[in-house]
């Protein structure tokens, strides 16, 4: 596939295309948003339209789709037709993945490419597993939060397998960057969906420990706080009763020079779900207010007030939380 050298010779001058009449685009007499196509672009698309309308699924048509993709990798009609050709020709899809690798190197944020990869990998089945996992890893080495790549990786795991090293991979990414929310999300994905692990409830205790450590090292990091909530997603009572969680909040609230926002927010959620706070917890929260004297009885309201002060960006949100506190909250 020498798309570069072929671009030098116009299609109209290539003998292998002499039997084809190019089909120009009909923009109408007064088009809007007309694009000043280069001659190369216009000609390539004119020939593409010809083979597309004729539904010609030949090797030369396949080659032409590659040229069209090189000019505009977002043309989904070209990609879809390419898939039809590949199927008709029963092409080697490993080669096709090589082709996608090439296109992806300059177009990684393009939906069509990722969909095409998924299509090819699905057809190849288990043979494609390690290749696809490696490919996404390569993408993450340049951009550890690449959205399409993560979706693709998740699809590969669910459709083709390869779960064995996934939790370890998440761990590695988090060691490199504890703030990487995509890695936390993937961790949640593995914990909840891996057929090799016991499921969320089995993993919960060890995950809480892991998360707590991450929080202690960086209390201002939102990701582990959300992850922690997620571990108790449908079971708020367990969250309220978990001693690790309470201890964690307390630790953060008593620390100095750290961000209290997430700890307070967690405490608020716990109170809203029936937590009976210890004296220590009440004192720690109260210490953050500017009020003198002993803590009042309404800890939840106090927490909201503190949040209004330490998280002024969301002052209206905290006011709203205060106004919608459940009646029986302390």
């Amino acid at each position, binding site marked *: 596939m020498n798309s570069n050298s072929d671009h030098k010779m116009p299609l109209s001058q290539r003998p292998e295309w002499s039997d084809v009449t190019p*089909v120009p*685009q*009909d*923009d*109408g007499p*007064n*088009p*809007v*948003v*007309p*694009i*000043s*196509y280069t001659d190369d*672009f216009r000609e390539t*698309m004119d020939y593409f339209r010809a083979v597309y*309308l004729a539904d010609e699924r030949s090797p030369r048509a396949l080659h032409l789709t590659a040229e069209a993709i090189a000019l*505009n*990798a*977002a*043309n*989904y*009609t070209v990609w*879809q037709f390419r898939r039809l050709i590949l199927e008709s020709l029963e092409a080697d899809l490993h080669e096709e993945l090589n082709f996608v690798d090439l296109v992806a190197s300059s177009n990684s944020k393009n*939906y069509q490419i990722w969909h095409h990869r998924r299509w090819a990998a699905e057809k190849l089945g288990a043979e494609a597993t390690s290749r696809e996992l490696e490919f996404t890893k390569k993408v993450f080495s340049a951009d550890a*939060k690449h*959205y399409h790549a*993560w*979706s693709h990786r*998740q*699809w590969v795991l669910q459709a083709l397998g390869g779960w064995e090293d996934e939790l370890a991979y998440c*761990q590695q990414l988090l060691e*490199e*960057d*504890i*703030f*990487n*929310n*995509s890695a936390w*999300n993937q961790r949640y*994905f593995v914990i909840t969906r891996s057929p090799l692990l016991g499921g969320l409830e089995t993993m919960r205790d060890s995950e809480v420990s*892991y998360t707590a*450590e991450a929080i*202690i*090292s*960086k*209390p201002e990091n939102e*990701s582990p706080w*959300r992850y922690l*909530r*997620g571990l108790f997603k449908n079971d708020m009572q367990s969250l309220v009763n978990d001693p690790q969680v309470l201890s964690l909040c307390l*630790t*953060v609230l008593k*620390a*100095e020079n*750290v961000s209290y926002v997430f700890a307070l927010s967690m405490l608020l959620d716990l109170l809203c779900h029936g937590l009976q706070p210890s004296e220590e917890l009440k004192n720690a929260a109260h210490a953050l207010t500017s009020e003198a004297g002993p803590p009042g009885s309404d800890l939840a309201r106090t927490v909201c007030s503190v949040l209004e002060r330490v998280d002024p*960006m*969301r002052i209206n*949100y905290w006011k*709203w939380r205060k106004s919608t506190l*459940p009646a029986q909250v302390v």
Partner: protein
Amino acid sequence: MSGSAIGTDSPAAAAAGAETAAATPTVTQKDQWMVESQVFHTYQHYSSLPIKAQSVLLELQRDKHIEFLTKGLRQLGPSFSVLDANRPWLCYWIIHSIALLGDSVDDKLEESAIDFLNRCQDPEGGYGGGPGQASCFAILNVFYRVDVCFLVLRCHNLPHLATTYAAVNTLMTLGGYRSLSSVNRWSVFMTLKQFIVFSDKIYSFLLQMKHSSGGFRFDIFLLLIARHIFNNDLLCILLLLSLASSVCSLMIQLFPFRMHHGGEIDVRACYTAISPLKAAASALHSLILSLLFFLLNAKFAEELLHLLNFVDNFCSSAPVHRRVLMQVASVLILRMMLSMNDAFSYFKWYLESFISMQVASALNILDDELVQNVGNYILSCQTYEGGIAGEPGSEAHGGYTFCGFATMLLINEANRLDLARLIDWVVFRQGVEGGFQGRTNKLVDGCYSFWQVVFVSVRARVSVIVRIQH
């Protein structure tokens, strides 16, 4: 990672840990500090300026934007070739922006836009990313202009939900400039002669699209386009308009959508599919309204009664159609009665709202387990963080949160989401810079001021639902 018992961790140790870690910032931290410093630099510069200079800096350069946009509508440079499969989007962004800026495009440009979008249409329904070749079908694009006849062009581009959404919204925006009820009546009549309607063939094709995995594979996206040329038979034309409307309502039921034939399935598809359908359905009913004005004022009362009978018979084999059409029919009768009263103009606004209610309920009567499928899918895309992802399992993301939430609102299932968690996630996407990030611990970006802030505009409604949820 080595574990230390949480209970024995002292605050000092926690702070010490923080200090050590700060010595080697992660990629996230570095990127964030870079943006923060850039933004604060801008804020500092702004605050150092005198008041008058500040207000100049904040002024929206309306005229310049309109000029830029209009120029783009007329011509785009070669670098836009990468958007060659997204030209309806370009139309939408430009025309919608012009509308938001309080201006409009001139008539000729408007007509050209409409003509162009028609050329992007696929005869099977939906809009592709660009135009194709001429074909033999004549079509009336009923929901924006009724006094022009267009050719349906064989599309070289597969219909794609995103571009269809863009095209429909463009046309709706343009349609807003010309109130449907002020359309020249004779041209309405003349144009209706070439009206094209849905065929049952298309309807059954839609039903075939059912996917075995529980979702619907909806490749062909129909937007009120009728296909069959009628000759001067006004009644049939009206009937077919009604049919178009009911099929339109039915199409809302087919989810989750693929973006295009053989294309990806994700949350964007749900929103881009539903939104124009609902908009188009409402617009279509407005058009029916206009036609009714015409008919009633021209005293075609007898023909109307014939129409109602015809409709009833036609629907006998398709009960689902029947309910929608009976509602439309009841509206027709009401109209007729009021017009005879000759107090028509006085009750016009009342009828408008009544008919809107009918439209709304017409759309809702088909709200059964088919619509539930959409709701189920989007629900499965709400993550542990509270936001909504593009696919089940992916990361919560501002763009998909907008699409998912907006869809749920449109199908009246927003209360199925964990709204408290969703709100909590969204409010925390606002950074110290003031703008919004798309995902936790990522950078703020102007676009998320749109995607994430949709909640603001529906805040009242959302908080009611949340209160009910608790």
